[in-house]
């Protein structure tokens, strides 16, 4: 069966140990987490976890059921079956040689990024968007020399029905 990428949004009790129950379920059953984001929601007792995983239809079904089975998981929403928006952010520290400064800034402009830190030798660029946008930006900026990079996992919400 075909492997598919799925973005799953979870509402969970905001308690110690909940994240390890979830990551333990994945590692114990041999499933893979590609990315993971956790933060509290408006309700301080509830956190939202957005995770991206990959598997065939049966594995994805098991992942959804196994997540639901965990006592601290309040709601499981596999967004991949719906229309949803997804964002990631990366901070990229790129080498800024005098000859390339203009080119970097042009790319920053095209991709609607922001320069958030400037030194005599480097720019730190904040880029936000889908996985595809980040990859495209990184491909173009790579030849300039990336010194360091920090990326978030994906966060996502379903689109409101129009």
């Amino acid at each position, binding site marked *: 069966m075909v492997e598919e990428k799925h973005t799953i949004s979870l509402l969970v009790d905001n308690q110690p*140990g909940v994240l390890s129950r979830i990551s333990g379920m994945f590692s114990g059953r041999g499933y893979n987490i590609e990315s993971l984001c956790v933060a509290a929601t408006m309700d301080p007792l509830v956190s939202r976890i957005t995770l991206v995983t990959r598997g065939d239809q049966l594995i994805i079904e098991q992942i959804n*059921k196994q997540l639901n*089975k965990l006592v601290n*998981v*309040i709601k499981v929403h596999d967004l991949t079956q719906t229309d949803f928006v997804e964002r990631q952010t990366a901070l990229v520290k790129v080498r800024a040689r005098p000859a390339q400064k203009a080119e970097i800034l042009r790319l920053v402009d095209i991709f609607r990024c922001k320069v958030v830190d400037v030194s005599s030798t480097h720019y730190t660029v904040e880029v936000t968007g889908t996985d595809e946008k980040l990859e495209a930006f990184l491909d173009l900026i790579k030849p300039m020399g990336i010194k360091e990079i920090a990326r978030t996992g994906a966060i996502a919400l379903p689109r409101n029905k129009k």
Partner: protein
Amino acid sequence: MEVKELKLTGARILMEIFKEEGVDTVFGLIGAAVMDIFHELADTNIQHIMARHEQGAVHAADGYARARRSIGVCIVTSGPGATNTISGLASAYMDSIPMVVFTAQVPTSLIGNDAFQEVDIVGISRPCTKHNYLVRNIEDLARTVKEAFYIARSGRPGPVLVDIPKDIIQGKTSYHPLPTPSLKSYNPTYKPNIKQLKKAIGLIKDAKRPVMLAGGGVVLSSASKKITEFARRLIIPVTTSLMGLGAFPGTDDLWLGMLGMHGTYRANMAVGSCDLLIGIGVRFDDRVTGKIDTFAPHAKIIHIDIDPTSIRKNIQVTIPIVGDCKMALIELNRLLNEDGLVIDKEKTKPWLEQIDKWKSTAPLSYDQTDTIKPQYVIEKLYELSKGSAIVTTEVGQNQMWAAQYYHFDRPNSFITSGGLGCMGFGLPAAIGAQLARPDRLVVDIAGDGSIQMNIQEMATAVQFKLPVKIVILNNKYLGMVRQWQQLFYDKKYVSTDIDVAPDFVKLAEAYGAIGLRATRPEEVVPVLKKAIEAPEPVIMDFWVDREECVYPMVSAGGPITDMLLA
């Protein structure tokens, strides 16, 4: 006048909740961190069974829960006391046994300090419990313990661990009894979907060669009578998994015997040829299905289980039904009544005749020669106990022969570590079962290997005057692994010869129990009789044929219709 609010210690609050939850027996072992709980326990009516090892305490609580159809409670100390519970928790988790295990923890101020007898038991036990808790504030204690009982008992049952730091056990707070908790994140589905049930009835009507497969879920939801009514009414032959033995009468005409790796020939062949398989309270474990691609290849499958993750985990099904087995069977029986379905006996005849043919082709059998055959011991035990004993087992050949040759007519009478296959389970489980059912004969069918894994619990049986009977099928081997070595590893018996062992008769006597031995076939019946009549715990040491194998057998991962018959 000012009303002074009464404050209770954490230990006292536990006792209050035990009372509310109807706990009358707890199993455990004392230690430094936990001693305040035992100190309090001594002032209650609750019976405390002191085991000699924490693993024994947890298995005993498991055996108690199964024989009593109730919940098992176990209390142990921090550190090694807690880690020793892991095999027991894992076994109960695999077999869905309701249990609450309390572990003491070092004081909250020391947690994370690598203190003496500190261990992160919540971290360690996370994958082998249904849920677990570390209590961080005494104000949370009562709610947490109530939740633990509720989660352990409800839905698909399972063990829950509650870790309580010593300062919380000793601390004080006000206490008011709490109602049964409701959790927004935990809400098991009991009531099956009626549309799915109606579809199931449709398939049942069309089936020409139906088979029913019952599992441990039928025993757990007390649905044996309902499944028997259902099967008899529709004239559907029934097989079970190891955990399902006793769910359907083992002496009924529709009984096929157990399914799977050491199932009967007719059960495996019937599943291989059926056009409809109704799985109830089973999870289609690999020991039942063998090679998945060839499992029930001609069948539409109806699968009823309370745990949605059990459905479509291992096999594809035609009609999935999530719900309680008993509620589903009551509804199915009701739908049949509404429908007024009458089974045409002529229609079912060819299928039942075919099954009879398989039965006579390869019945369970052995040749009793001049050495004792293990199967013979169990057959005689079955006859002498009139089939009414509660049988616990260890794991391996002893377990399979017990499953094959003791015909269970009643549920909650066969108590075995099915999923985990935990050697050392049988003796402590027998102790728990005997406490739960003082009126019943309780027998642990053991091997000489596995009995040594928790033999220390003989002292518990003697101390609490529990007349459990231990049948050791002594072949001086780790028999099941030796059987695999014989069949698949060129008879290279590596690490399975355990000829160096204690004299089990003397060992029984050393514990203050009775020890009996049979080395020849004619001694089997007198030894069994003497043991059954004795009011004390008894170890029976049967010197059986060393190289007897369990047949039939399906090789691991092979199709279940491809059986080695002898």
